[in-house]
């Protein structure tokens, strides 16, 4: 028997870890692109929204651009009237994301090779604007329910198995099944990404590009192909993140704001490290939840999570300016 307050703390910690995994899912997409091309992709959040919108749209058989078509031609079309099973829809949505990656590379970043990082960053903001409007126009801005069969709600099994630990006020640890699924998915995703980067030809080429563009070019790696590949991977990660977050809250505009949750994770983990994104996510998740539990809610009136994550990362950076796993910054004159 432990004191309840301690058990509650452990519960908060566990949930913080789970939330951290969800943050890390978003952060992964940032890392992939930044590592390979030095682009800080602000549009990652909007990509998650767009991917989720596309998935729901395909599943429900929505007619894309129906609003525009109806306005221009006076028709009244909304649905094709079919329902695509989740698995096929995910594949189709992925195909759309690959197409998007190709377009992003072909129409935007091909023309911006060699520009300063801030210009590239700005271009992704332009992209975010564009996709926000485009996604809304394509699928409409009403809220959509995403149901791909992921269980939700607290896990009874864990609750019952742990209830004996505390007194009568303790009901066992609460852990959302969705979070458990997300954690498993995240682990699988990281393993996939890492083994892709380590053991495949394209993966090696990707790492070569990340190391040195010039050198990679000179040994015959197509930069353009690698960048399309990287953006596709980021699109895939965005789709996964979009599914996880969309299952929680329905698919709607606010999904794009999860990018803001990923930024402190990136700072902590370093912009260039995949394990960094995961560890950073966990630290941020646990840190903000525990702070809210111990100090924020009882003493500061709550809602401290947003800034605490950033403050934590800020304090951390002062001691380690390149983040936890970031490449050491070497400065030469």
């Amino acid at each position, binding site marked *: 028997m432990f004191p309840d307050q301690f058990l509650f703390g452990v519960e908060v910690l566990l949930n913080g870890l789970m939330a951290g995994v969800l943050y890390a899912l978003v952060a992964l997409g940032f890392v992939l692109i930044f590592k390979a091309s030095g682009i800080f992709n602000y549009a990652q959040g909007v990509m998650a929204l767009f991917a989720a919108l596309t998935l729901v749209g395909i599943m429900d058989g929505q007619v894309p651009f129906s609003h525009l078509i109806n306005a221009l031609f006076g028709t009244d079309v909304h649905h094709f009237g079919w329902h695509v099973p989740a698995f096929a829809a995910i594949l189709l949505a992925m195909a759309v994301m690959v197409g998007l990656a190709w377009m992003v590379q072909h129409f935007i970043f091909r023309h911006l090779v060699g520009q300063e990082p801030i210009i590239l960053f700005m271009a992704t903001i332009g992209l975010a604007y564009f996709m926000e409007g485009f996604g809304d126009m394509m699928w409409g801005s*009403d*809220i959509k329910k995403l149901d791909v069969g992921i269980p939700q*709600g607290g896990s009874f099994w864990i609750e019952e198995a742990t209830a004996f630990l505390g007194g009568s*006020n303790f009901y066992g640890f609460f852990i959302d099944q969705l979070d458990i699924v997300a954690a498993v998915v995240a682990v699988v995703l990281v393993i996939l990404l890492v083994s892709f980067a380590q053991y495949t030809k394209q993966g090696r080429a990707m790492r070569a590009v990340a190391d040195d563009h010039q050198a990679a070019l000179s040994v015959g790696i197509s930069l353009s192909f690698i960048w399309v590949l990287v953006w596709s991977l980021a699109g895939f990660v965005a789709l996964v993140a979009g599914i996880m977050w969309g299952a*929680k809250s329905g698919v709607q505009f606010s999904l794009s704001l*999860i990018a803001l949750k990923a930024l402190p994770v990136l700072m902590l983990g370093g912009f260039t490290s995949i394990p960094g994104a995961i560890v950073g996510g966990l630290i941020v998740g646990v840190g903000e939840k525990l702070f809210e*539990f111990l100090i924020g809610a009882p003493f500061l009136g709550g809602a401290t*999570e947003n800034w605490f994550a950033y403050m934590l990362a800020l304090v951390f950076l002062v001691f380690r300016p390149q983040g936890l796993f970031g490449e050491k910054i070497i400065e030469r004159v």
Partner: protein
Amino acid sequence: MKRLATATVAAVMAAAPVMADLVFPSLSYRTGAYAANGIPFADGYADYFTLLNERDGGIGGVMTRLLECETGYNTEKGVECYEATKGEGSLVYQPLSTGITYQLIPKATADGIPMHTMGYGRTSAANGKVFSNVFNYPANYWNGASLVVNHLLDINGGDIKGKTLALVYHNSAYGKEPIPTLEALAAKHGFNLSLLAVDHPGQEQKSQWLQIRRERPDYVTMWGWGVMNQVAIQEAANIRFPMENFIGVWWSGSENDVLPAGDAADGYKHITFHNLGDDYPIFDDVAKYVVDAGKAAGAGDQVGTVLYNRGFYAAMLAAEAVRKAQEIHGVADITPAMMRDGMEALEITEARMTELGMPGFGPSFAVSCENHGGPGTGAVAQWDASAKKWSLISDFSSPDMSVIQPLIDADSAAFAAENNITGGCN
């Protein structure tokens, strides 16, 4: 660039037709974080005026003209919209955003244009002596807070001493509004109030709901908007909080909010100040004259949803105020100042609502200079997840004005002192 802009804007302004019509600006938001809530309201608001034009040829023989302007729930765009539309003879502003409302209260008052903030905005505007041009009938947030507590009293046989009520609120001006009322009510009825703030947008609320799970409040009430509602209802379901003990204010009770949670949302309640559903004769007319004629606003698929009904109701009240103004002043093409008089003299009776094809749609009430806030009555609606329908589970009842009125007086007095308003009624 600038010159082009000048030319275009000038051309646009010159192109606006000058003819007798009743102009209703609709500061809507069909984009941005709150679009899912903004769309049905704007559709309902627009469809009612379309119906009047199509079926009756306007109000009192004068056609209505709806000026829709997209704000995206953004204060600056709201200001732009206000400035763009006020010159066209706009009769009444309904911005559907607390931020924009606060913004426009002084501006609209200075310009002599009335505002109607139905169930939102600045609550103390119910005191017409201070806020001459602002109306928030038939109910406001503080009424809503009191109605929530009244409902708790009802189901507990009048005694909620020692119970705990948790308020989950949007951490903004809107969400903070009910706190003083709930605190006063907590003191009066002896229940404990616990406050949980959720920051915009509210996508992540694990901490708040874990806290609720730990503290086990008897009841939870919510002042949320946008994605915050959906996430809160989902999280409440996740921790298996009994849904029938979870009561939202009217802005946390649309179909959008409960549908994503599926069956888990069954039993969720919200307070409403108007009736729900599409079982009213007037909706047959809407189908006939508006939807089937292809004149519906938006996609035309929102008829009968909670927020559509609310927009529809807001438009109905505005149209009735126009009729009243036409009657008072004997002019068909009224000005904003006459509109204000019409709103202040507005009287809604059951007979009139039946005549309009909306029997029992809202409360019967009369507005006066002293009371711009209406009766503040409301009912409790409960969600039936299998039927995907809201249904009222109580009658419309009155809030506890003995607590609310002093708060309104104090807050409006503070505003009057700050802005040197002498006010009063004549």
